[in-house]
């Protein structure tokens, strides 16, 4: 049960933190359509996070709800990937981060649909439909910017160079992951990785972008060891519940 709680928390926190990051674009998008697109995607992710954290709270069995998990934990209790907490940067940086994540989430949800855990399988079935739209959107932008002007190419290549080091963690495996895989609850990460590689190779090739070699691979998010950026996100996100405990809309 403890493994399952930890596992659901990981998926839920990825959606929560990336949803929060994308919401920062609200009112700041480069064009109105993209402002709307990023906040729409944010909304899908926050919706997924609500269901996942609600489920995690039930597994934990301490009478908490999704909001309490989202707003009242400390940074070391968050289990999201380092990738999703990275700052938005420019629009290209946000699209690159989104593309790496979407290219992972699609095969991940496809496989999670067959999970032996009924609730996770239902969430995957629902979320997959949305994720397909997200991936289409982010990969089109990576190609448009990569294969665009000299400046857009150079800038998105820099975003790729800055973010690629966080992608190995997408396939993080430890005791929790292995236990969930052997219980038939979690997808096999090797399979997800090979699908991810296919999408990334195809899109980056179309985009005329190159994967940097010999980079140090960062990990830590799954163990609660985060970059300094998470603290700032939480300060913003948790302010209201910390200042006015139990406040409701």
């Amino acid at each position: 049960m403890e493994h399952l709680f930890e596992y659901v928390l990981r998926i839920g926190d990825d959606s929560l933190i990336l949803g929060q990051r994308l919401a920062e674009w609200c009112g700041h998008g480069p064009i109105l359509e993209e402002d709307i697109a990023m906040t729409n995607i944010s909304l899908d992710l926050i919706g997924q996070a609500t269901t996942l954290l609600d489920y995690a709270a039930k597994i934990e069995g301490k009478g908490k709800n999704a909001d309490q998990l989202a707003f009242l934990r400390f940074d070391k209790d968050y289990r999201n990937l380092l990738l999703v907490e990275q700052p938005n940067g420019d629009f290209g940086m946000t699209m690159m981060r989104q593309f790496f994540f979407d290219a992972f989430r699609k095969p991940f949800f496809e496989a999670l649909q067959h999970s032996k855990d009924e609730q996770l399988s239902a969430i995957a079935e629902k979320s997959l439909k949305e994720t397909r739209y997200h991936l289409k959107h982010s990969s089109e932008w990576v190609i448009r910017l990569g294969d665009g002007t000299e400046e857009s190419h150079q800038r998105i290549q820099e975003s790729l160079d800055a973010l690629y080091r966080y992608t190995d963690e997408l396939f993080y495996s430890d005791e929790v992951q292995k236990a969930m895989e052997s219980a038939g609850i979690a997808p096999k990460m090797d399979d997800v990785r090979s699908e991810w590689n296919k999408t990334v190779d195809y899109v980056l090739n179309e985009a005329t972008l190159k994967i940097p070699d010999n980079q140090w691979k960062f990990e830590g998010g799954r163990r609660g060891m985060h970059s300094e950026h998470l603290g700032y996100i939480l300060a913003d996100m948790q302010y209201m519940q910390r200042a006015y405990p139990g406040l409701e809309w």
Partner: protein
Amino acid sequence: MVNESVIWNYLTEVADPEIPVLTILDLGIVRKVSIEGDHVQVTITPTYSGCPAMKLIEDEIIAKLREYKIDNVDVDLVLSPAWSTDWISEEGRDKLREYGIAPPEDEVDKSVLFSEPTVVPCPKCQSRNTRMISLFGSTACKAQYQCNECLEPFDYFKCLK
């Protein structure tokens, strides 16, 4: 005595908060109605995970049934089977068109990453010469299109399967 078909009938009076020409039955989000004693259970499913209208729809179902003196009502949410635009009724599709929103078209296989945007006829002039402006629109379920003939910008209720 209240039976299930009476409840279904009452629910035809609950409009979708974001597209008020559609009832929640046109939209296909009511999955089940069951009665046990004087307790009524209505099961709904969200269109999108983050659809902000779900809570309001839940409240409106409860308020509507209360108008008919049915007070003991619970609304619960199921995720599976996941909602599909195929569940929008024929009548619902006509209502959408009249309202100026293009109803969902059958789209090619979504596992294909790149494909031409779907041809969506203009709900005003019916021309098929339209273009996609953005995959994302005013609500989670819509995309933005524009007609190249009559220049009308319009919402497209995007296909979700």
